[in-house]
């Protein structure tokens, strides 16, 4: 069914989970089940979702305000209402949904998740609230070529990596080549640019695309499938039986009254709102918010990165062996692991102990990362200060710390100012990784716009231009100040 996790990310998440679960023994399923009680006491039901998958969940721009809507959201609203609590939506990457419930970031995860046997090993599931069925998207011009699934024999078929559709296409379409990608928006784009002949996708999604794009057509898959493998269910942390039972009562009602049809219809209306105007101007506020967060994260992270960097660099210059060792190990460790893992570790891992919001987690992780790199820059800057300077300071009787503060560091900073500026600029680009935990930076917003407008390329182009404008203006600005500082002697 929907997006799944690439093997690598899954491994990473597993390690993160194991680490944190290992750290916090109280996290084990053996603990008494207080899941329902906790939600009621809090008065809030916290739900994790990935709102870039219409008609299940997506963002709409209504009266200038952005809001998350879709069938899944209506299901969740109904559940919250039945429990007499408020619904709180936390958005994040699909890859992170299950980890979020395992680490207690959310009470439940919803997002067209199939309750497969594999997943049942790590989380609990509600009853299935919706069964969509499988289909293929093709280009309208190919309707005569691909009248039914049988004609797809030998074709190139796209599907989201690791999903059900991916496995089915491989197994059931003879001689086909299956191409995997992360996002359905990318896959649709691949279809439209003829990189693939057909796209294996869930029926409601396919219908949504067809409605919004006359160049696309849908054909049924004709697969006969196990119900558990195609239905969508809500995921919970293992051992949440009381909460699952309560939620199942709502699902029973949803099914009895066929509420999902109603929900889908209203989602369709929202999608119309979205696609009435797919010009990028219409979405300027989305991009503006993305730019704002990207700059915010980069700026704050650079500032803290410099503070951390100074501390680390000074640790390298102390006499204490263990302090030096600590600084070296930290730097090596941070530089030897990807920023993406660090971001996930802070959000999910440390989040088990203290609940840190996504934006703050992103800033912390990027700062910690940047600190290691800045430390090396500062160390180079300190080394570049002439030996005569420290000797003169020493001969005047200045303490080591005064010498650093008044003589060495100011000169070091002057030497490394351009390098620090570059670090800031590269953070603007690298911080895009925080979108995986749902921080609304430019990349995240870009994906929202792509999902909402069904336009694959233009939003990418807009984001690219925005990134370039940001880095270009900053480079100019830094050069200007650099020139000024040189002037100051």
């Amino acid at each position, binding site marked *: 069914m929907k997006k799944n996790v690439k093997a690598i990310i899954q491994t990473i998440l597993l390690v993160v989970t194991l680490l944190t679960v290992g750290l916090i023994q109280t996290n084990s399923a053996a603990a008494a089940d207080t899941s329902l009680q906790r939600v009621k006491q809090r008065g809030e039901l916290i739900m994790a979702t990935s709102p870039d998958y219409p008609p299940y969940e997506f963002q709409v721009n209504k009266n200038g305000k952005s809001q998350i809507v879709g069938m899944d959201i209506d299901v969740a609203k109904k559940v919250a209402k039945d429990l007499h609590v408020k619904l709180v939506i936390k958005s994040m990457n699909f890859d992170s949904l299950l980890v979020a419930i395992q680490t207690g970031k959310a009470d439940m995860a919803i997002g067209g998740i199939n309750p497969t046997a594999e997943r049942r090993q790590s989380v609990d599931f509600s009853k299935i609230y919706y069964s969509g069925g499988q289909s293929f998207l093709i280009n309208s011009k190919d309707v005569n070529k691909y009248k039914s699934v049988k004609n797809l024999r030998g074709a190139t078929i796209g599907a989201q990596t690791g999903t059900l559709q991916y496995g089915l296409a491989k197994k059931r379409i003879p001689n086909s080549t299956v191409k995997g990608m992360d996002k359905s928006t990318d896959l649709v784009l691949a279809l439209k640019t003829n990189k693939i002949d057909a796209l294996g996708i869930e029926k409601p999604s396919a219908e949504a695309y067809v409605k919004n794009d006359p160049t696309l057509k849908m054909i049924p898959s004709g697969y006969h499938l196990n119900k558990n493998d195609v239905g969508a269910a809500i995921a919970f942390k293992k051992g949440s039986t009381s909460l699952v039972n309560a939620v199942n009562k709502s699902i029973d009602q949803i099914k009895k009254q066929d509420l999902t049809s109603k929900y889908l219809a209203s989602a369709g209306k929202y999608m119309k709102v979205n696609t009435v105007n797919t010009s990028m101007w219409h979405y300027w506020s989305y991009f503006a918010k993305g730019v704002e967060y990207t700059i915010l994260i980069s700026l704050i992270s650079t500032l803290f990165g410099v503070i951390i960097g100074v501390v680390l660099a000074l640790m390298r210059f102390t006499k204490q062996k263990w302090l030096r060792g600590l600084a070296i190990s930290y730097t090596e460790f941070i530089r030897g692991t990807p920023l993406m893992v660090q971001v996930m570790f802070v959000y999910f891992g440390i989040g088990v102990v203290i609940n840190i919001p996504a934006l703050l987690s992103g800033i912390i992780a990027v700062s910690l990362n940047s600190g290691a790199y800045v430390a090396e820059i500062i160390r180079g800057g300190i080394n570049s200060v*002439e030996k*005569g*300077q420290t*000797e*003169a*300071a*020493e*001969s*005047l*009787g*200045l*303490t080591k710390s*005064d010498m650093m503060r*008044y*003589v060495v560091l*100011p*000169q070091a900073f*002057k030497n490394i100012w351009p390098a620090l500026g570059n670090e800031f600029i590269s953070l603007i680009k690298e911080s895009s990784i925080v979108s995986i935990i749902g921080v609304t930076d430019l990349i995240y917003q870009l994906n929202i716009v792509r999902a909402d407008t069904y336009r694959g390329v233009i939003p990418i182009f807009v984001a690219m231009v925005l990134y370039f404008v940001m880095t270009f203006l900053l480079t100019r600005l830094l050069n200007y100040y650099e020139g000024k500082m040189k002037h*100051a*002697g």
Partner: protein
Amino acid sequence: MQDKNILEVNHLSKKFGENEILKDINGTVKSGQVICVIGPSGAGKSTFLRCLNLLEKPTSGEVKFEGTDLTHVDGKQLLDLRERMGMVFQSFNLFPNMTVLRNLMLAPIRVKHMSEEDAKQTAMKLLKRVGLDGKADAYPSSLSGGQQQRVAIARALAMNPEVMLFDEPTSALDPEMVGEVLEVMQELANEGMTMVVVTHEMGFAKSVADEVWFMADGYILERSKPAEMFDNPQNDRAKDFIGKIIEAK
């Protein structure tokens, strides 16, 4: 007062790795004395001077400053003793990130805990003395070499030291600027400052030094009155060396 030992060096040796630069250095500097140290390049003159205020840690031997052996104190106490010895370097080493005035005020404020106003007053007085009060707000990079070195002397004097160490203070200067720096140093000597000066300026040595020490091979091979040293050296190495510097003039 004239007889008080400010500095006393006993059996000082300094090795860099296996390389023994100073072998057995002995000597005393009395209050108000001006000692000039001469010797061939690489003889260890700078190393000797830097051992006097422990910028370089001696391998063995004693360096006594007003009776306290510096080689056996460290931390706070060393800083306390060091602030009473001024040092002037061949390459000036002014702090380029501050104005001339701030260069002079930094140590008095941070080390001596002088008030901002007092430090400024002292600094301006000293700048006037070296003829640079007009440059108080300039940055070092805008000054000529001679001016920078005069500021460096003033900076050292701002700590009100009891002895001044000079390591070839004029050898990085253009010839026309040597005079202005030597003049300042001469005035200092006249005022009774105790000074140890590594220099090859014979004129200066002759007119202000009480003694000239000739250093080579890790030892002080000869110490004499300046006139004697330059006109009639006893040691063969000294004879040879002085012959060469006179020839070069």
